[in-house]
């Protein structure tokens, strides 16, 4: 039996389209999941680093971690560009789900090039946002 004759009619167009999509997304950096650009550790990173932390004030000790805390860093990266209504909605939800009086969102900045021994020097912490049941308030 010929292998070519046995392959379904659509097999070759499918294989061409499939391999083409894998190659285009991979080499062209298009992230059209599941055709990924496979960008795992290939992003350019400078020595300037930023991180975010949220602290609930007056939260119940047994309060569950709010769903909205997932990927805090990616949320906070674009938080300032959201509309006030969107910022308020997120903040109110976080505060309520934490059962807290307020949720303080801190921004941490540090330079990897500034070293203390083998490690980077401690980051600079600054209060960026205060979330309450009434909404979001940017730190002065």
């Amino acid at each position, binding site marked *: 039996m010929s*292998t070519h004759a046995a392959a379904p009619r659509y*097999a070759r167009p499918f294989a061409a389209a499939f391999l083409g999509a894998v190659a285009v997304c991979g080499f062209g950096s298009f*992230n*059209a*999941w599941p055709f990924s650009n496979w960008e795992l550790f290939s992003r350019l990173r400078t020595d300037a680093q930023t991180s975010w932390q949220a602290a609930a004030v007056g939260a119940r000790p047994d309060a569950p971690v709010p*769903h*909205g805390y*997932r990927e805090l860093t*990616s949320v906070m990266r674009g938080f300032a560009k959201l509309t006030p209504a969107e910022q308020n909605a997120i903040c109110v939800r976080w505060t309520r789900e934490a059962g807290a009086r307020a949720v303080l969102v801190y921004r941490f900045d540090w330079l990897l090039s500034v070293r203390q021994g083998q490690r980077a020097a401690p980051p600079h912490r600054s209060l960026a946002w205060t979330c309450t049941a009434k909404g979001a308030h940017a730190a002065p």
Partner: protein
Amino acid sequence: MRLLERVDAWLFAAEDARRLAAMRIGLCLLLALRLATTDYAHVAQQQASLFRPAPLSYMRLFTHMPSHEVAIALQAVAIVATLLAAAGLVFRLALSLAIACSLLLNGILDSTGRVIVGDALLTLCLLVLLASGTGFAPTTNCWVTPCAGTVCVGCASAP
């Protein structure tokens, strides 16, 4: 031209039906495991302002995350469909359904601001499996009582 023929012969080479069936069972069981052990409902009920599909994502067809109940239902349907596909029962329908549900569930995870590569490779493998048609009923027969010799792209065309 000769190179193209060699590539073509490599891509569409004859394969033993039992190995194809083993591939189908393995990939489907892996998907079932991933579906059963991932918490999709956790992020499903995020509010609309936190719904951030990637620029090229099919999730842009939606305006917000599905409800907790919808995510659980999708997960249950996907697991059952994947197990049916692993067994070779109503393979095309079952695997199509499983992949569709899996795409939606992974889309939920990917719409929280960061695309997770995680199951991308598995999904691509399953798309190839679906297109190859290796799960027709004859393939199940191959698994139970293997066909004689080798066949190309599953047992569907086997004598």
